[in-house]
């Protein structure tokens, strides 16, 4: 975790399909209802397009595709999380499509377990930890890593090389 004076221990939980995920609230700026999406031609399929966020242009990512859960089917519960991502030291805003937003939970650091080193479907760099709330496991995600990686799959099977961002200088 970042070395701040106070560590924020609140997590916003959301669902992708049946799986429950958590994102540190420090990373979430906003939750929006579905809105009109402008598709950008010739973009990879998980890049859904752009939306108008109060006068600025926000790129939108289909989180389900990132997690290999198939394309998002829009329902009344579909939401957009506006995230503040650290992209190579630069703060970048990005929208993430999720199936539904659940609640904000206080999770003490002591209750967070390290991500399983084996047996997990996703690569461990993307997961900050696991928490068990009401007999349900919540995967706490490292949002910076997830939305940083351009075309990389989050799945374990893909090539072992980690390529974060593209800038090298």
């Amino acid at each position, binding site marked *: 975790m970042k070395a701040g004076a106070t560590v924020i221990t609140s997590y916003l939980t959301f669902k992708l399909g049946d799986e429950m995920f958590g994102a540190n609230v420090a990373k979430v700026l906003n939750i929006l209802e579905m809105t009109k999406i402008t598709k950008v*031609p010739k973009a990879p399929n998980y890049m859904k397009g752009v939306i108008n966020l109060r006068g600025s242009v926000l790129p939108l990512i289909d989180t389900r595709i990132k997690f290999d859960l198939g394309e998002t089917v829009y329902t009344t519960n579909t939401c957009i999380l506006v995230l503040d991502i650290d992209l190579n030291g630069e703060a970048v805003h990005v929208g993430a499509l999720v199936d539904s937003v659940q609640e904000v939970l206080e999770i003490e650091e002591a209750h967070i377990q390290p991500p399983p080193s084996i047996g997990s479907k996703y690569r461990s760099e993307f997961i900050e930890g696991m928490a068990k709330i009401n007999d349900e496991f919540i995967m706490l995600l490292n949002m910076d890593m997830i939305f940083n990686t351009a075309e990389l799959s989050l799945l374990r099977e893909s090539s072992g090389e980690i390529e974060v961002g593209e800038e090298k200088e």
Partner: protein
Amino acid sequence: MMDNFKRKFIEEATEHIQDIEQALLELEQNPSDKPLIERVFRAMHSLKGSGAMFGFEKISEFTHNLETVYDLVRNEEMVITSDLLNLTLASVDHLSALLKEDADLSEALMQQHSRLMKQIDEFVLADSSKKNAAVELTKPNIESEADQKTYYILFQPNEDIMSNGTNPLFLLDELYSLGECLSIPITKKIPSLDEFDPNKCYTTWEIFLSTKSDINSITDVFIFVEDDCELRVNLVCDYNLLSTPLFVEKIEDVRNKQQEIGLSQVQDFVANMVSPEVKQLQKSKDEKSIQGLKDQTISSIRVASDKLDQLMNLVSELVTTQARLSLYAETDGRPELLNIAENVQKLSRQLRDNAFSIVLIPIENMLTRFQRLVRDLSKELKKDVVFEAEGTDTELDKTIIENLTDPLMHILRNSLDHGIETPQVRIEKGKPAQGKILLKAFYSGANVIIQIFDDGSGIDTNFIRTKAIQKGLISHETPLTKKEILDLIFIPGFSTAANVTDVSGRGVGMDVVKRKIADIRGEVEVESEINIGTTLTIKLPLTLSIIDGLLVKIEEVYYVIPLSVIDKIYAIEHTKLMKAFNNTIVLDGEQIPFFYLRNEFGLSENNTTHEQIIVVRYEDKRVGLALDNVIGEYQAVLKPLGKHYKKQEIISGATILGDGTIALVMDTNKAIKQFAYKTLITEDSK
């Protein structure tokens, strides 16, 4: 509060330092230019003063020593030598370093500090020993100045002076031959034309003469007309009054107003100039600084750049809101509202243009750095290179200038290191020993073109080809035109530097230049002729934030195409498009290749009867883009698509329409390049 002052000081000091640097570089060309020396001295003086005021003692102390040297130069007790210039330039660099580090100076900087201080002291010392000799030398000169006396002469010929064959003008000529002379004719006695007698002389002259001759030789001039005129010769002062700009100005003034000066006024004037040398210097100095101040207040004010950014943002928002108003007015249809909307549109357009011109700065601002680079580097590389710039008043958005400096420095380094040969080689090749780098800037439509030309060895295409094959970038068979081969230098990892030097050739080469220029929506091209030289052409947009575009629609998505690239728009039958052979269509009797954008964007075919083809310029060709609908002209406030869409080259940004919908801004050059490349590949695979 104090920080605020300090920031101001640093800002100001940076300006002074830049000013000194520029003046020094000019001095190198023209070492005896007095105004330039004055400029250096003045800037040093202000730097010293404000430095002491804000507690930058190191700077103040250091500048004081420099100032001492230039005070000597200013008083012609020392001449500008290249050693002195080198030392001063090094000192100027040191000053900028001092400015940056402020209070806690690093060890290295301190060493540099004392070393330079010592050198400067040595300069002054060495000079003072020479001084006596120098004074001896300059003295006669000064004396010759001081020896002159200024006389006021009133010459009032009698009306019939010309009847005995005297021409008063000849007398004046004779006076002029005695020394520096200024005459004011008084013509008020000339009668109206019907009373005018051409044989009579009506004019009186007031004459100021600065001469080494004595009063007798002056009266001697008039010896033959003594009886035919009234003559008064008075000594006004014992120095050359005519070399005083203030006085000359005054006389000019009087002459223009056709008044007479009169002896008393002149004497008053002289009395006011107690100690001429001192006073005069001071006056001209004061005058200059006042003038400088005046220039500043009238022609420019300082505004913090974030205020300008804010202004630009507001203007952008206003333009967006105005688009909304126009849209609403149109749907509403009330004529009065339409009228207002139209006016608001006109005003916001003017406001936009105005605001944009504020953030435009001439490229001159970055030239000093280039001059310096060329100077220092050519010395280091033992090459003789002159740097010239044309069109330095060409203006560009300040963000563009900020981002352009680094790539341009890189290009210049390349030209110096690889382009221009050593004098020896140049002579062997039959070229002048001195190489030349020319930076040329000019407007071209909505773009600014910057060209950097060097008359060096040029780029060897064979060498590039071999190297590209070695690096596996191309195969032996790849047929490439000359232009394509030259373009290879922009490919990442391609650096032709045979020997890696400190200067260039560190592997990060022209690809970085290209990318940095692409970041500010610019393009770069290279042309080269062996042994004649290399020209790099950079094409830049005038501004980054708003473009005039054409709003079009493909399926549900709006796009903006920059008006600057659009040639013509045609409506065309859908079936004709579909049947077109080899993706070319005849428009106005000309075969034009086109792309069906729906296909290119992976959309299904449109089932309408008519579609639009927009013909755009691509390099030197015309290419058609077929799409659904043309909506109309639109001022697009550019917003970035964000880092996540960085790879989408064909879309350079987005803009928000009046109703909140997003329109994508298309970069037609990149789009066509991509489409064309793709077509090539698919054809090959068939």
